[in-house]
């Protein structure tokens, strides 16, 4: 290469140990392999360090009459020769989200150029059909925009008067809600670590759902302890029902049981509590929780709807999952009796027989409404009306 056609990098007084190496790499990157750059500069260690850098980088250093000349080696090109682009960052671009992302893309950002030879990660949920929903990005954005601070979103100091019976009923309901929200946090979180990060929006949405549940647990606990030093009862039957969610290893089935059927049912419960809340603080905590839960249900419906459209055999598996769970819980008590009673008392507003009768009627109506809405969600997923009704009736008596 003639000196005239050679690139020149003038570092001035900048040493290769003080950032000059960055400029050298950029100058070399701009050249094809075996092309040369003349390096000029007044740093006393320039030649010394250039020798060490060239040796480590696979470049040749030619010292001669024309100064320090570096001939670019092939190692940098060789490193990136087999690299692949891991989809595209913007999910809206056609083909951006791969159907089966490579295990070797690992935790690389979607859209990054990934060096060949990266280790394979063991993400077991790596098929787009299993986890993806186009709605995930929008739901995540919505969730991020409406995150609320438990310390300030609720006016904890608002004065109110409540009878002991009603306060006890609220404490029991809060105890029950905490238990169920703990399951709603942990069950998806167990899948979160198995989802290929290529499905970034789904990963983000599940993460923010977990954060939602963490806040719900906090505000329910705080409400329960507002005027009591202890929480209420936790029944073996209720826990048995929730355990079946933890024991479901399939993401589609677990998310069907939890998000569509469980959290869907919970939505009715939370709005029921909002309607009958005997104090402003209970009213606020259940309202805020219900708004979050609605997004969780929406995502469950969206990704299962997409999955079912691509794999109709999933219908049968979903139905079997409901039946299996029902069979497993056949001999358990279902809803904690104290929770049922507490709901009746809260809806009644007092222990006067006439009020209790009205409260009881309201809770029975709530159960019916829960069942109707479950059936409607199942129909939205494409189940025939009769099957939707039958499956809805098999749902756990524990609501979640």
């Amino acid at each position, binding site marked *: 290469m003639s000196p005239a056609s050679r690139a020149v990098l003038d570092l001035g007084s900048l040493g290769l140990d003080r950032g000059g190496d960055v400029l050298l790499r950029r100058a070399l990157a701009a050249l094809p392999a075996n092309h040369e750059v003349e390096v000029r500069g007044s740093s006393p260690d320039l030649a010394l360090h250039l020798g*060490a850098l060239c040796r480590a980088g696979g470049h040749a250093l030619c010292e001669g009459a024309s100064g320090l000349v570096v001939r670019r080696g092939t190692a940098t090109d*060789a490193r990136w020769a087999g690299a692949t682009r891991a989809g595209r960052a913007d999910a809206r671009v056609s083909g951006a989200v791969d159907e089966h992302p490579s295990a070797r893309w690992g935790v690389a950002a979607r859209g990054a150029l990934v060096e060949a030879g990266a280790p394979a990660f063991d993400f077991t949920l790596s098929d787009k059909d299993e986890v993806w929903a186009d709605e995930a990005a929008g739901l995540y954005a919505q969730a991020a925009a409406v995150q609320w601070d438990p310390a300030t979103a609720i006016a904890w100091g608002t004065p109110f008067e409540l009878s002991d019976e009603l306060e006890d009923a609220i404490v029991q309901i809060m105890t029950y809600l905490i238990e169920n929200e703990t399951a709603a946090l942990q069950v998806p979180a167990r899948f979160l670590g198995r989802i290929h990060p290529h499905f970034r929006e789904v990963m983000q949405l599940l993460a923010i759902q977990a954060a939602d549940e963490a806040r719900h647990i906090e505000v329910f606990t705080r409400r329960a302890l507002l005027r009591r030093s202890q929480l209420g009862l936790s029944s073996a039957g209720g826990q048995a029902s929730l355990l079946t969610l933890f024991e479901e290893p399939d993401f589609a089935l677990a998310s069907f049981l939890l998000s569509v059927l469980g959290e869907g049912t919970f939505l009715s419960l939370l709005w029921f509590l909002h309607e009958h809340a005997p104090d402003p603080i209970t009213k606020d905590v259940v309202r805020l929780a219900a708004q979050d839960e609605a997004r969780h249900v929406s995502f469950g419906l969206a990704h299962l709807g997409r999955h079912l459209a691509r794999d109709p055999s999933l219908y049968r598996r979903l139905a079997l999952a409901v039946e299996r769970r029902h069979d497993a819980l056949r001999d358990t008590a279902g809803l904690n009796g104290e929770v049922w009673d507490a709901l009746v008392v809260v809806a009644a507003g007092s222990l006067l027989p006439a009020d209790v009768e009205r409260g009881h009627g309201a809770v029975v109506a709530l159960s019916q409404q829960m069942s109707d809405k479950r059936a409607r969600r199942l129909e939205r997923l494409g189940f025939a009306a009769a099957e939707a009704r039958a499956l809805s009736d098999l749902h756990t008596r524990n609501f979640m």
Partner: protein
Amino acid sequence: MNTLLLGAVAYDPKVVTIWDGFRSYFAKHGLDLDYVLFSNYERQVLAHLAGHVHVAWSSPLAWLQVERAAAVRGRTARAIAMRDTDRDLTSVIVAQRSVATLGELKGKRVAVGAADSPQATMIPLEHLAANGLVAGRDFEVVYHDVLVGKHGDHIGGERDAAKALASGAVDAACLLDGNHLAFSRDGTLAAGKTHVVAQTARYDHCNFTVLDDAPPQLVARFESLLSAMRYDDAEVRPLMDLEGLKAWAPGRTSGYATLAASCERFGSLKPLLDQAARELPVRA
């Protein structure tokens, strides 16, 4: 004999990863290679001479040790391959700003790495001696004996020497050129506080060594598979990165003259040669 046995020194836990990886690579290409790790180069040299391994990954000092001990026994050693990064290294003597020239090190304290480190001790001390400054007579040597027996493969001693310079505990320190760059870049040596007062002549570093009784076909296959390793092969690139090379180069022995002169001057080969005489007596 269908297995090629290779000896290497375990100077760092990553050595196991490296040789397991190389072993898989060779197995995939039909060469059964197994490796034996030694805690120090001297034991590896003796095992090599005793025929326990066929190929040894030798430090420059280990190369001189095995070559000389083999010659005593009428045998020959051959360097068959080395990393591209084993060629044309230099070391530097870095001093406080108050020391303007090499000559001003007289009566001063000079930090070096481990006593058996070619790059951080033996070659720089030879350079100083060739310039009229003999260690112990003209200046005090401050050793940083981290993992003696590893021949300076462990960077710890060299870093300690640089730290001693930075703290003002010594007047100068001897470092590999690449480590001078690394320690300047990471701030171990603060900008402008020290300066290079001498740079040694170029020298070579490690090589794969065989003795004249190594199985020729296995060694030939080993050489050919080594040279076939390519940096654009994603399977072997991580191993090449760990071992610090972009390509394997043919072995050459022209780059060990300064170290040989140092050994001659300081009698550095004698302990190993004496040990070999005791453990592996030369038959009349």
